[in-house]
């Protein structure tokens, strides 16, 4: 099948910022995104783990968004401008998709 090049953007972010990041992605008119739960991790600020937690504080979520390269630059800039205190990592990588129109 013919495939098309798109970008996959992975954003690991603190859970309390979920609504804000969702709104930001929608404002950039991505066609969609999916949120995955992380269970724990380690970074410059030490370890964290979801086990036994009773709040969202210190929980990280992964936002995965398939989008066209054209949209990624503006998004990345706004991300770092307004959410950089809450970001674990942001990566972009090349992926192939079948239906390019779904990921404008």
């Amino acid at each position, binding site marked *: 099948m013919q495939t098309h090049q798109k970008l996959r953007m992975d954003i690991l972010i603190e859970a309390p910022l979920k609504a804000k990041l969702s709104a930001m992605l929608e404002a950039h008119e991505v066609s969609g995104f999916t949120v995955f739960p992380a269970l724990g991790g380690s970074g410059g600020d*030490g370890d964290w783990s979801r*086990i036994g937690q*009773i*709040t969202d504080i210190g929980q990280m979520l992964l936002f995965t968004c398939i989008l066209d390269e054209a949209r990624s630059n503006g998004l990345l800039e706004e991300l770092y401008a307004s959410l950089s205190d809450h970001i674990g990592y942001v990566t972009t990588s090349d992926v192939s998709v079948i239906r390019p129109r779904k990921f404008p």
Partner: protein
Amino acid sequence: MDFLSLALDNLGAPMVLCFLLGLGAALARADLSIPEQAARMMSIYLLFAIGMKGGVEVARVGFGPEILMALVTGVALSILLPLVAFSVLRVTTGLSAIDAAAAAGHYGSISIVTFVAGTQALENMGLAYSGYMVAVAAAMEAPAIIAALWLAARGGAHTKPAPMREILLNGSIVLLCGAVVVGWIAGPPGFESVKGLFAEPFKGVLCLFLLDMGLLAGRHLRSAATDISRTVIAFGIYMPLIGAAIGGAAGWLIGLTPGDLALLITLSASASYIAAPAALRVALPKANPAIYLTLSLGLTFPFNLTFGIPIYVALAETLAG
């Protein structure tokens, strides 16, 4: 009952023993954990049960001026205590204005589980308290957060616009207030029908929840040594006592009964670890969460549960007895 036997009774209660078991397991790095969603559900259960019980009491005794007086006092304490805590932190520790403001907000707000533990201690001693004190607890959750934001802004911090909507619509506040209203409308006969869940198993659920709190506190305590300085650690122990003193004075002024006074003191001495961190993490992103969480969960909560509550009850009995 003298203070020593009060303290010993408290330490031998199943709920405190469960907390210590969790604390010990976490410090020994045992592979013990309560599933996250079960812990959250227990937290919802406890909030709902305590709120509904309070609302039922309000329905029983009616909404009178003494309730209003207690509510106003609670709100005033919730605003005042962060100012005190902020000053103390700035003078005694090297924390930045923003870190101090964030931590201070936690001490104006309250811990509902500490409140519940206080009611259990009173029940064990046969000391009466008013059901509406849970409404006071609910009223004290949010004002402190707004005070903290104001302190941070005055301290020059670049704060985001105060998210009043998010603060007031925090799940734990909505649930506690909602449960009070449900209890108020349903009244004693309504509560009778759900006692099999919200009354009989209550103390047991509190035990399992405190086991989880012990595990969490232990994890925070383990990182306390590396994350925060000694002066900040000390603050986590003596600030509840300052809060207790101020709360005790305020409650004495409005003439609370010994039981109600003990609860107002406990609320003043307790530090939030649900509503306050949730709001401040978003509104004050530059404040270091390790500091305020270690203070409230790792130090103040364990202190209050083990030694604080007996002290607060004894203080209330001395003041109002």
